[in-house]
């Protein structure tokens, strides 16, 4: 068995696969302050359903923002390549990936061989991310995050947000509410602002949004944002059943590949998880 751990800013995911790259188990938990603990807990939860132990895992690859803090991993990889690998396993023809997570958004273009040819991501601004959605939804509209997607779909006259800055958009929405705009119109306005921001970021990096386009990350669960992306691009968007797991799945695929390479080079495979779990970053 091979494991991929994606320690994101909001959630930590673990995926366990077998030699045939079939998913045996997965888990998803909120990321804790201690990212080592988050990774270990996610892995433990995933292992529970397989009735196997740590010793049955041949190789672990960690990814996501907390990737370096997880000392149990045998290899650390950035999430761009893991997203590409995991998404390609699920959708072999994929050409473009839009991934919107808790604190970052990414647009990844794959070439005809499925390798990453270009990517764009936000380096320093939270506009157009899950955090943007969360702040505006929960704080200002007083809605749960899972309510905003269905609500947005009911919009008949969506508002336009002139700013995608999380802080300034917040003030703008307060003004819209005082002007008696309907919550569903504001909800779809927020979805469109996210879509425009992410599409603009990708287009700025010469990404052509060739189909098939796969939408992943926590925000992919929001049907309002998915619809806004389709409308803005004029193209069809597809999403995996578990859109938050693609990077962890890709990491597990890399774990399998690296394990084979390591075996071939006759190097010791990996240290014991129990021992390394005690090491903190």
């Amino acid at each position, binding site marked *: 068995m091979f494991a991929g751990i994606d320690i994101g800013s909001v959630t930590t995911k673990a995926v366990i696969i077998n030699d045939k790259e079939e998913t045996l188990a997965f888990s998803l938990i909120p990321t804790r302050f201690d990212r080592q603990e988050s990774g270990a807990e996610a892995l433990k939860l995933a292992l529970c359903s397989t009735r196997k132990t740590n010793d049955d895992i041949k190789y672990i690859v960690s990814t996501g923002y907390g990737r370096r803090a997880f000392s149990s991993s045998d290899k650390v*990889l*950035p*999430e761009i*390549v893991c997203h590409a690998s995991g998404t390609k396993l699920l959708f072999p023809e994929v050409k473009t990936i839009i991934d919107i997570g808790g604190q970052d958004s990414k647009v990844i273009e794959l070439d005809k061989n499925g*390798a990453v040819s270009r990517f764009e*991501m936000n*380096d*320093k601004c939270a506009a157009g991310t899950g955090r943007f959605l969360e702040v505006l939804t929960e704080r200002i509209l007083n809605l749960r995050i899972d309510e905003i997607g269905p609500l947005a779909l009911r919009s008949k006259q969506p508002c336009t947000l002139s700013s995608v800055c999380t802080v300034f958009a917040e003030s703008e929405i307060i003004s819209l509410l005082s002007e008696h705009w309907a919550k569903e119109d504001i909800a779809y306005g927020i979805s469109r602002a996210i879509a425009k921001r992410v599409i603009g970021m990708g287009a700025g990096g*010469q990404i052509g949004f060739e189909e098939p386009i796969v939408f992943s990350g926590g925000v992919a669960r929001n049907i309002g944002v998915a619809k806004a992306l389709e409308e803005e691009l004029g193209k069809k968007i597809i999403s995996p059943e578990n859109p938050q797991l693609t990077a962890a799945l890709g990491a597990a695929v890399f774990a399998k590949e690296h394990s084979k390479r390591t075996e071939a080079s006759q190097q010791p495979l990996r240290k014991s998880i129990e021992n390394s779990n005690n090491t903190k970053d």
Partner: protein
Amino acid sequence: MMVKNAYEEFLRLTGFEEEEMAEYLPEWRKASEKLGLTEEDMRFAVQERLPDHFALELEGIRKLLGCFVKETIDLTKAGEYKQRGTKIVYGILPAVLHFYYALKLTAPERIFVSFPDIFITFVMNSFFHKLAPYLEEAEKTGIPYGCRHCALNKTRYAIRRLGIIPSPDINWIWGFVCDEGPKTDEFIQLYHDPEWKTYVTRLPHDQPLGTVEDEVIERVEYLAAQMKDGFESVQKEIGIKVSEEKIKEVIDIWQKYAAKVSELGRLMSADPQPLGAVSGRFFWEGLFTPFNTGIESMDKALDITIKEVRQRVSNKEGILPQGAPKLLIYSMHPSVPWIAKMFEENGVGIPLSEFFVLTKKQLRPPSFEDPYMAAAEGWLRTSGMVNPGYQAEQICEKMTTHKVDGMVFGLMDFDRWLGSSHRLLARMVEEKTQLPVFYIEGDNWDDRDYSPEALRTRIESICEIMKMRKA
């Protein structure tokens, strides 16, 4: 490592000989105090910054860093020079340094020349990661944070405000690329120092995309005339006459130095890469920035480094494994040295900065006898400053010459002109070479907005993509 005398150890690590300590140690302490550097800063440089980023095991690199330290000490004494009657002449990038050196060679004892912001920025950030107080000083007095404001302009303003440098007799500035440089000097003169006297030489960007500007005679003549007007105004202002022979002499010195730097560039492109990107980068500054203390020390350090690096190449010694992917980077600045280090730690080399690597044409002797025409032609051969279409052609030549696997653009967010043309350039280069081209948002002078953690995923992704492609 316990360091007894951090100031002394700093000088040792930057190539000062034991017999120089008696002279330079007190001077360095005095200069440090003026610059706002503390003993703690010295310890940080000695224990972390220098060993982490520079190949201090090489004598040539230590001596190279020492040239910048000596120049900075000298710069902090500019006020004393002025009091003794020395004429102070400043410039800013992207000036043509030949004229400043010609002044210096004509009257070495009577003239002080410097691009002061360059040295302060290099030394304060590359060695101490402490440029921020200068930037903040400029920001709180009128040049706002962000908005593509260049750290060099902010630093120039701040070091004058803080009394580190005196008013110049003349500040010959160049509005060739950036409109903010001349505007900053107007700002200094208007609100801080009425004696901050400037002369501006300008060059409009009115040539069609892709024009080979050094081959358009009217363009060369126009620029030569602008340079001549500027230089005559400077000479008149300080009352010192420079012969045309002196300019020719400087052009000849520059050509020889350029040839040596290019040899170092050739060696740094070897596989395995023999030297980290940050270590060698300072040598290229000698092509663009005049040293009041002279170019001779840099030249000597360069000779030693070439010899040492040649030995590494011959021994197949590298900072990366043989066959590691390598990228040409638009401009890697030692002020933010962790960028190059992050690439290298992830198995990808960025041995050279495109902006500073010279093309075959740039290394050719000038086509004109007239020194102003020769200087103008030389400047226009540096396409990076004027014409993205021509620059794309030159970048492709450099990528072929140095056998790189791709290119990284960006890190020029501070500059309205270069920063905005990068996406266009990246596209042109990718189409022409069919090699991967990447872009990193950032500012290569000032990393207050771009922490290693913010850029880590981007840089590590670039490295993984390159390793996968190469595999």
